């Protein structure tokens, strides 16, 4: 027996021969002498067997022979010409392919290429005989409108689409199929145009509409009237999102979230308003460059920013800048030109006339974007990556303006200083100074030296300036002569200097500095050898950098890399840090102080540039005034336990910590303390989820032993420890809020360890902590009041003044509170505004070169390229700008051979399941020959001449008689045209993943229709994201949406590239990592499992069952709910006849809703039998019914009997799993 595959293969070959017969003659008139054409018949053979050695790539060419051009093939060679037009016998090509000598025969045996078949050799022979015409590739010649062909059955034709299709059928001796049943046609056009099936009412209305143009009216309604118009936009956008590789995450490394949905909404709006295709193209390619660019047109350029992006720490920016530009060029090529430009990145295109230089000429339109190349990992998953656009809604704009006005008012009130304020403040600090005997001195500098090479110079004002060598790390040691005794405070002033970067305080390239340690030794001036260490136990700074563990208290512990960062790269002006000695120092007669400043952070050259040291004496009474200094929060955990009680009760170890030891490992899980600057005081901080304990801890520096009032919150319970002793605890199950508990925490003088154990018993954990000021304690900003007045530069003085007001004046306090509230609201407002990534050109375009082998670090400087289009496809219009706008104009010019064809082909594919060019992503030489070349050109020209009215083309396609044919397979076509290339019937096709889910929601009555907006997170099995994500990823936890989010159309489902929505992926949705023009349509058991068991389908089945029960009338007793379902089932008491009728009607309605068809008796009977069995089964086990109904959160109408509903739910589930449910007939 011949295996079926082989038998069918032969048939196809026969068919292709028949096809060429028709095309060659043109006009639908049969010719008896089929002449092979180069592009369709000959070139595929040569390309496959010969071009590797005798083709366009000069690098691999053998014997200097090329067969891809007429000149090359016919060139006279020593042994004759390879091809002699009209003379097969003289053509060496034929001789060589026929040769029986293995050494002579082409292709060579060792080339791995198959020998030519008899048919193939015959094609070559006949082509040479006919003159060996090398006509150019059809797709590279601009289309002209062909004449509509003559057809015999003109009555069948409703429009030109039909004429071309029918002419082809008639030439094959085939007749079209009869029209589809009206209900099937309705379902077809609803699904094709809106992505949702019609309701029974909508079907009935169409079936009952006897007007001649009922179908045209329906189509118009679906395209232009709400709610269909919006649904149509949602349906049209779906394949466009694949093509444009739209997603909600970056795709690489942490796969960070990105905000891009405004672009998706732009697409939706464009389809809803029926935007002409020329504008649709122009705005996406160059909306930022239009003379009248708007926020909307800029938003459209997100098309070019949808590519994947990385934030991997070790990645190299230049490399990714290249990748991004390559992606833009390649995607533009695939989507609009139907060309595989990306193939020419590394070498000349093997098949298409696109050289490597051509590729980089196209690429250079896309490589001059104001983008950094690498993006840092930020916790915000709603981030838009630069360059981006903020898109406030009108009401947000209004509120922003109102808030700004409020803020100005409140600030004005605040700046109205009360008469006497300044005087009162001065008196206040004078009193403190007097009480504490505070007196400052500026010691004389005896020497200053840097250990690793910097030159330190003492300036007249007692400050010290570093210059000269600038090593990565350095340590300064200065010696001072101080006069005073009883010294307690040390002031370190960092001073800006014009010799430093940007006139800032640090020696780093960006002006920043990080002080990692300060230590002081003191000795009698006459006994310098007997030095004693001055222990420092508290610190304060006027400013600390916020984006890391950078608090000034870090400098109290020299010898490690932690330090005080001053943010010199972003803030001007001086800085001040104040340190407190544990005991008074200084000797009578004067002291020699040796001060060491260490710079050992991981940041090279972040060394102080200019500084001054002063000291002050002060008495013990000052210490009570000083605020408690707090280190950065550290965290360790989570620690797992078997039970909630254990989580609270078990000591995992960190509670007894008395030091912040980051090397120490706890438990078998080897957990260690790590700093987490994201944990903030006075904020709700999230901690790991599960039944776990997580510890947060920090060092606390108390100038005096004291009791500090603190405000606490926790999810769930907490235990609080100071230096290993428990000081407060709460065992409770609760969610996190501020100020849930208050405690007074005793701290000993000096540094101690504060540990909070967060006891979590499920869900996400979290804590809240705020230490409040004690009476008489100075607020942090008021500490500046202790500084000598000449160390209080203007900015610091202003802050001090403000702080003073806030502390002491009720109006000011009120204004401050209002300002804080306004600012919080303004921040929330700004954060909440949508933003979206857009294109933005660099002021100066980059120089672009051909990259050797496509590698980013191998630009060939000898081959610079200018922006232009592949020469074989034309050239930019003379007057067009040399940028993306000019590129768009070229694409839309009448001479462009590709753009209009590619666009109409996509529409054809959308309606008929396959394009006229089946390889819709490739119109190049390796692409497929169009099935109906004239129709393609007719549609392309019509699109352009109609003002690019793509909706008009769509209307033509669906109102044709071709579209209205039955989809039943025909026995006479099964073998002649198994792929339905001739369109003698309408192609049956499985629905897209999105349409399958949306249809289920729609027939269930669950679909929540909201047009546009943020992406949503419907049901998804737990853990899918977590299992693949990095711990640091901000798209690690999938937090299922609430309410309507569960039932929105699938186009709004959040798309994480590393783990796309699982059920959509099962039904062939791509990952969206790169441009996808065509999806596969597979048929796998995983699809059956999803339809049966995915909770969103189970819930939909339940809702479908419920509405079926409710809509078929409260009516007769058989449908009445039963209070006691298990003992007095309604089914048991009603008459068998009544119940059967009612069941049948319901089954019919249910199936009609899902498939649009009225089921026949056999189908109804099958369902009835199953229903009766299920009803009985759940009557006997009502608890199972409850379990089943518990799937999903959609409410259950209380009047329904659970047993009845459960039985119907399963019948509905079977219906939703039907082939007819997920297929468009």
């Amino acid at each position, binding site marked *: 027996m011949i295996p079926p595959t082989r038998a069918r293969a032969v048939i*196809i070959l026969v068919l292709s021969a028949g096809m060429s017969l028709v095309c060659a003659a043109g006009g639908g008139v049969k010719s008896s002498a089929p002449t092979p054409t180069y592009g369709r018949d000959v070139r595929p053979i040569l390309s496959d067997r010969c071009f590797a050695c005798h083709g366009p790539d000069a690098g691999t060419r053998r014997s200097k022979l090329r067969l891809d051009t007429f000149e090359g093939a016919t060139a006279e060679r020593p042994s004759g010409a390879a091809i002699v037009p009209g003379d097969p016998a003289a053509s060496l090509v034929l001789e060589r392919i026929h040769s029986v000598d293995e050494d002579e025969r082409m292709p060579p045996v060792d080339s791995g290429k198959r020998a030519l078949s008899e048919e193939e050799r015959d094609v070559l022979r006949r082509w040479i005989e006919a003159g060996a015409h090398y006509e150019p590739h059809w797709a590279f010649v601009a289309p002209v409108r062909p004449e509509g062909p003559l057809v015999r059955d003109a009555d069948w034709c409703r429009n030109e689409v039909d004429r071309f299709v029918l002419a082809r059928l008639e030439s094959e001796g085939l007749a079209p199929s009869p029209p589809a049943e009206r209900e099937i046609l309705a379902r077809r056009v609803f699904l094709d145009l809106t992505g949702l099936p019609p309701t029974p009412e909508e079907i009935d209305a169409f079936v009952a509409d006897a007007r001649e143009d009922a179908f045209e009216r329906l189509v118009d309604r679906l395209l232009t009237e709400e709610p269909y118009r919006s649904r149509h936009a949602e349906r049209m956008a779906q394949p466009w999102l694949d093509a444009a590789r739209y997603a909600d995450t970056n*795709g690489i490394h942490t796969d960070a979230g990105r905000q891009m949905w405004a672009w998706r909404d732009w697409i939706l709006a464009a389809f809803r308003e029926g935007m002409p295709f020329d504008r649709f193209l122009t705005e996406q390619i160059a909306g930022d460059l239009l003379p009248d660019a708007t926020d909307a047109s800029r938003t459209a350029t997100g098309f070019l920013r949808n590519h994947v992006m990385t934030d991997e720490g070790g990645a190299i920016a230049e490399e990714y800048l290249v990748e991004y530009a390559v992606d833009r060029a390649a995607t533009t090529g695939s989507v609009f030109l139907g060309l595989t430009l990306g193939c020419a990145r590394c070498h000349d295109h093997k098949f298409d006339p696109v050289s490597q230089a051509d590729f980089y000429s196209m690429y250079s339109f896309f490589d001059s974007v104001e983008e950094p190349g690498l993006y840092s990992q930020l916790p915000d998953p709603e981030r838009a990556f630069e360059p981006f656009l903020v898109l406030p809604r009108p009401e947000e704009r209004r509120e922003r303006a109102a808030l700004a006005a409020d803020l100005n008012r409140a600030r004005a009130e605040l700046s109205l200083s009360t008469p006497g304020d300044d005087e009162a403040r001065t008196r206040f600090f004078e009193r403190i100074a007097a009480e504490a005997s505070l007196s400052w001195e500026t010691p004389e500098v005896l020497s200053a030296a840097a250990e690793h090479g910097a030159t330190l110079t003492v300036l007249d004002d007692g400050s010290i300036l570093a210059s000269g060598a600038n090593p990565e790390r350095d340590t300064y040691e200065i010696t001072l002569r101080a006069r005073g005794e009883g010294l307690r405070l040390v002031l370190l002033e960092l001073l800006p200097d014009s010799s430093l970067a940007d006139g800032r305080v640090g020696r780093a390239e960006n002006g920043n500095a990080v002080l990692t340690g300060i230590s002081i030794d003191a000795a009698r001036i006459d006994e310098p050898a007997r030095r004693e260490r001055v222990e420092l136990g508290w610190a304060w700074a006027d400013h600390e950098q916020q984006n890391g563990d950078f608090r000034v208290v870090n400098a109290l512990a020299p010898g490690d890399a932690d330090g005080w960062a001053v943010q010199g790269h972003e803030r001007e002006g001086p800085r001040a840090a104040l340190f407190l000695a544990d005991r008074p120092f200084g000797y009578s007669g004067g002291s020699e102080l040796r001060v060491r400043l260490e710079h050992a952070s991981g940041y090279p050259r972040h060394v102080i540039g200019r500084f001054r040291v002063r000291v002050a004496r002060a008495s013990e009474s000052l210490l009570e005034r000083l605020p408690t200094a707090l280190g950065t929060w550290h965290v360790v955990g989570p620690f797992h336990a078997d039970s909630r009680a254990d989580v609270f009760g078990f000591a995992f170890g960190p509670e007894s910590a008395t030091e912040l030891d980051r090397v120490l490992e706890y438990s078998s899980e080897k957990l260690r303390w790590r700093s987490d600057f994201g944990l903030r005081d006075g904020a709700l901080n999230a901690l790991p989820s599960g039944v776990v304990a997580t510890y947060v801890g920090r060092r606390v520096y108390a100038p005096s032993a004291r009791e500090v009032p603190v405000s606490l919150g926790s999810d769930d319970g907490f235990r609080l420890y100071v230096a290993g002793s428990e000081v407060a605890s709460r065992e409770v199950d609760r969610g996190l809020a501020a100020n849930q508990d208050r405690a007074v925490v005793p701290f000993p003088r000096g540094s101690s360890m504060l540990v909070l154990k967060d006891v979590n018993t499920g869900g996400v954990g979290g804590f809240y902590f705020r230490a409040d000021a004690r009476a008489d304690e100075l607020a942090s900003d008021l500490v500046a009041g202790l500084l000598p007045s000449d160390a209080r530069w203007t900015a610091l003085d202003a802050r001090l003044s403000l702080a003073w007001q806030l502390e002491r004046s009720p109006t000011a306090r009120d204004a401050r509170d209002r300002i804080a509230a306004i600012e919080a609201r303004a921040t929330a407002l700004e954060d909440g505004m949508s933003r979206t990534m857009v294109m933005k050109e660099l002021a100066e375009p980059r120089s672009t070169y051909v990259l050797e082998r496509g590698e980013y670090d191998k630009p060939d400087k000898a081959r610079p390229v200018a922006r232009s289009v592949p020469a074989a496809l034309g050239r930019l219009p003379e007057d067009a700008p040399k940028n993306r706008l000019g590129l768009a104009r070229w694409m839309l010019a009448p001479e462009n051979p590709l753009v209009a064809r590619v666009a109409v082909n996509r529409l054809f594919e959308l309606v008929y399941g396959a394009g006229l060019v089946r390889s819709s992503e490739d119109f190049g030489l390796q692409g497929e020959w169009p099935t109906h070349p004239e129709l393609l050109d007719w549609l392309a020209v019509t699109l352009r001449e109609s003002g690019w009215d793509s909706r008009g083309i769509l209307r033509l396609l669906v109102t044709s008689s071709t579209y209205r044919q039955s989809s039943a397979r025909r026995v006479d076509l099964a073998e002649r045209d198994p792929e339905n290339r001739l369109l003698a019937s309408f192609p049956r096709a499985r629905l897209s993943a999105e349409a399958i889910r949306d249809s289920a929601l729609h027939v269930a009555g669950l679909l929540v229709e909201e047009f546009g907006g943020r992406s949503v997170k419907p049901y998804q099995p737990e853990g899918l994201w977590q299992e*693949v994500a990095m711990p640091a990823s901000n798209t690690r936890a999938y937090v299922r949406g609430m309410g309507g989010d569960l039932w929105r159309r699938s186009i709004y489902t959040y798309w994480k590239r590393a783990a796309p929505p699982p059920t959509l992926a099962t039904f062939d949705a791509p990952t969206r990592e790169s441009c996808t023009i065509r999806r596969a349509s597979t048929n796998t058991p995983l699809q059956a499992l999803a339809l049966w068991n995915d909770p969103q389908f189970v819930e939909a089945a339940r809702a479908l069952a419920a509405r079926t029960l409710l809509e078929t009338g409260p009516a007769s007793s058989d449908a009445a709910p039963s209070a006691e379902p298990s003992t007095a089932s309604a089914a048991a008491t009603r008459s068998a006849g009544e119940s059967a009728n009612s069941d049948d009607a319901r089954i019919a309605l249910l199936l009609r809703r899902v498939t649009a068809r009225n089921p026949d008796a056999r189908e109804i009977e099958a369902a009835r039998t199953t229903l009766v069995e299920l009803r009985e089964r759940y009557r006997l086990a009502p608890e199972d019914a409850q*379990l089943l109904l518990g799937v999903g959160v959609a409410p259950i109408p209380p009047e329904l009997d659970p047993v009845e509903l459960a039985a119907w739910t399963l019948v509905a589930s079977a219906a939703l799993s039907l*082939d007819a449910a997920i297929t468009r007939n």
Partner: protein
Amino acid sequence: MHPHDEHALDLTRRRFFGVGARSLSAGLGLLGLGAALGRDRALGMGLPIPETASGLHHAPKAKRVVYLHMEGAPSQLDLYDWKPALRDRFDQEIPDSIRGGQRLTGMTSGQARFPCAPSMFRFDRAENRADGVWLSELIPHTAAVAKELCFVHSMRTEAINHEPAITFFQTGNQQPGRPSFGAWSSYGLGSENQDLPAFVVLITQGFGNMQALSARFWGAGFLSSEHQGCRLRSSGDPVLFLADPPGVSRADRRKLLDLQSEWNARESERALDPEVRARIAQAELAYRMQASVPGLLDLSGEPASTFELYGEEARKPGTFAANCLLARRLLERGVRFVQLYLRGWDQHTNLPAELRLQCAAADRAQAALVTDLKQRGLLDDTIVLCAGEFGRTVYSQGDLTPTNYGRDHHPRCFTVWLAGGGFAPGITYGKTDDWGYNVVENPVDVHELHATLLWQLGIDHERLTYRHQGRDFRLTDVFGRVVDGLLTKRA
């Protein structure tokens, strides 16, 4: 059934499960397009048909692959590639002549020094079938099976960061979009099994710095999506949506399936579309999978000796030991390609402590898998591959002390090992220089490894192609060659 339908159904079934057992029992599989599309459809689409569409390119040495991907890149210097000469070079600068202007990751490119960090671990000589192999004290179980292992010390790759490097190792290309190795295998070979997918993926979370995984690593790229790896998860449904909803019994499911099939049969009569019949059959397969997958995961039938071999960890779902055991059970059932991921090998700092933990998770289980396959007679025609995506630097990243150091990414040399499937057992291949920095003998690049693996499966890497966007793509791009030195004898 209409013969036409039957044929189409047969094709459709193959689309998920690959080729039927019939052709394989004859020692031959059906290549690529035959399995994916059917020769007719391929022809109809103008796609080239390999002339070997009726079978493999040559007699295969191996039928199955289990690929242990050590994600994050284990340190070859601390595990496999012993460099005794480095003992005396602690903290010495790596000479420029050795580094040779290599590009560095953004993580160490700012480092002022590149001080040598010799491994702090003891290496012992393990018996193999040649001159022995020196292996780290961290992997005693692996050392014990060295007689079966083929160590390649001279692997090289192109990428220096995880994402592109893993993507390269899994798909032959650094940028996303290509099919994974497993998908190519499924496309080329189909499955020997009727109730399980051809390509299964198992993931273990590790201890150290975890890099991201992405569906693309086991994705089908432009191949049709039935070739993508099917993840078996250790929590929840092992296969997504495998379990029926609560309150629905196996008998209920059967009843519903019968109803569904009857309805579908009516649709088939009306539509005359073979796809409907195919869907009926797919639903039946789904029903069978609901039984076969739990059976696969049910370890109660495993004797005590299994857990003596793999360790008690193997009872805990999701551990590397459990996944190695599961891999054996999958291979036994005819799954073609099992891919395991063990995350957490990215030790930039604090390497000694973290590596110890990772090895504790990996060593015994991977050795047990080799032993187990050997004992069951499966090792002969199963390839075991254990590889990270690149190596680690000999110079230290961050603080360096004799017992604490870190290592950055190193693409220029690293070690992978193979076992079974015709790979020469008990040998070492390739050499690196005394600094463990460059390959000095017999380099093997990723495309070459791919070509060699395919060769052992009966496939010529240059001839397993798929036409996409006008180009015939293959796993090895335009590169690769079979590395004969790794094989017992070229098949």
